[in-house]
């Protein structure tokens, strides 16, 4: 059974249909890339999984159990972490408070200490800035905090929405390396990216969305090699 399976998903915002029958699956242990241009429905897909956007049709299931009627906070407790588009760190709070909030659903002190140690080992920069207000961090540091915060709940599936957006090239490399490490450590990853080539290099499989539909799907290598995908979505490089 797939860890996450989405089938025939429709999402509407007011009168606008953002997703049209999207189906995809994420197997335990994979990194799956979700690609596509602006407005293709990548963010909406993640928001629907998290319960922030309501599906008008279709099914979303974690380990076969439906998420569609669940509230966002219940979905976090079921094991889905989500670092949203635009990082959305709590700017007025310290890095430590942000990480504490990430573990809001974690009641066990020892589990909390373990998660914190893991996150700070993964992002040593956050360790140096624990008492600093999150709003004063650089963009790269805020992205690390957003990912670290999502990891604090100990998710089985980590969803990352454009983690490389707006970062300097050297930081982009770091972020992709860290995503691969997190995955190697046992966390399944659903990765939304505009930086398609980089994402496909670390992904086992990928989906390309176009105006709310899945246009292509395949292994990372196949998508990278497909001239139709390369033409339309990977840019010439």
């Amino acid at each position: 059974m797939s860890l996450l399976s989405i089938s025939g998903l429709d999402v509407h915002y007011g009168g606008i249909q953002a997703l049209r029958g999207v189906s995809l699956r994420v197997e335990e242990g994979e990194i799956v890339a979700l690609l596509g241009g602006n407005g293709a429905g990548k963010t909406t897909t993640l928001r629907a999984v998290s319960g922030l956007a309501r599906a008008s049709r279709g099914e979303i299931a974690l380990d076969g159990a439906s998420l569609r009627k669940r509230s966002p906070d219940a979905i976090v407790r079921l094991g889905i972490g989500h670092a949203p588009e635009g990082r959305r760190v709590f700017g007025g709070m310290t890095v430590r408070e942000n990480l504490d909030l990430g573990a809001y659903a974690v009641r066990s002190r020892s589990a909390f200490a373990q998660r914190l140690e893991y996150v700070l080992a993964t992002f040593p920069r956050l360790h140096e800035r624990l008492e600093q207000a999150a709003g004063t961090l650089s963009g790269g540091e805020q992205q690390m905090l957003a990912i670290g915060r999502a990891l604090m709940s100990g998710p089985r599936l980590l969803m990352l929405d454009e983690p490389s957006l707006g970062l300097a090239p050297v930081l982009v490399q770091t972020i992709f390396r860290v995503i691969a490490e997190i995955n190697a450590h046992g966390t399944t990853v659903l990765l939304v990216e505009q930086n398609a080539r980089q994402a496909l290099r670390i992904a086992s499989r990928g989906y390309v969305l176009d105006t709310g539909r899945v246009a292509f799907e395949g292994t990372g290598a196949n998508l990278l090699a497909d001239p139709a995908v390369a033409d339309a979505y990977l840019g010439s490089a």
Partner: protein
Amino acid sequence: MHEFLAQLINGISLGSIYALIALGYTMVYGIIGLINFAHGDVYTLGSFFSLAILGLLGATGELHGPALVIDAGLALFGAALLCGIAGVLIERLAYRRLRNAPRLAPLITAIGVSFILENAMQVWKGPSPVPFPAILPNPAVTVAGVAISLQQFVVVGLAIATMLALQLFVHGTRVGRAMRATAQDRDAAQLMGIDINKTIAITFLIGSALAGVAGFVSGVYYQSTWFFNGFGAGLKAFTAAVLGGIGNLAGAMLGGFLIGIVESFATWLLGGQWSNVAVFAILILALVFRPSGLLGETLPEKV
């Protein structure tokens, strides 16, 4: 000089009541962006509940010793609890379904809830001011030649203790942190696993309980209450919240004390008929020259 100090102390006493009410306005605004115009009436409800509890306890006059502590304590906590529950019910019944509606809809609803509460209280206690038993012995202490009544000490002391407790709660507890997170970014808070419905309900519970404390305090202080008290006091407390920077707890407290002091001095120097003019002139000046308030964020946190 003595008159100056006496008016200052009056102003601080009055201001501590405004500050307690202003906290509820600012907490609710901070978390759901709603000016809860029914909040002033929850404050009146607090004095009515206190009155009812004292009536049940048979406390009609000055109390001493254990009876004072027990009866006053029951009236205070009872009023706070009942107001808190009223606040939660108001949110659940009137505001929750409108949370994602255009802003005008919940605002109009809040005014409607205000009318409902005012009329219900008018039915309950009648259209005239109602006497509130003078339960507190009231010897005056003379400090530097100025007589300060025990009531004033109690009013200000209770208000400050309540505000300190609120600060500790908001900054030192898990639920307090969830409230701040929800106020800053509702979606991100949900992604942390925070149940925002519960968090918003707790915010209404606490804000309304503070209004209940203010209702008790004002009854003890003025020895009178009236179904329509909350209208004026609510508007002034709202002014205090805006002056301090709406959404900001410390600002609401500061604004409350400032508005109390301004009202007291305006009454002394210009006459009682000018006190409202002075208070609302300050609201207008604040809105024109410092719309984010004295302690409000000058940079928006939400980008």
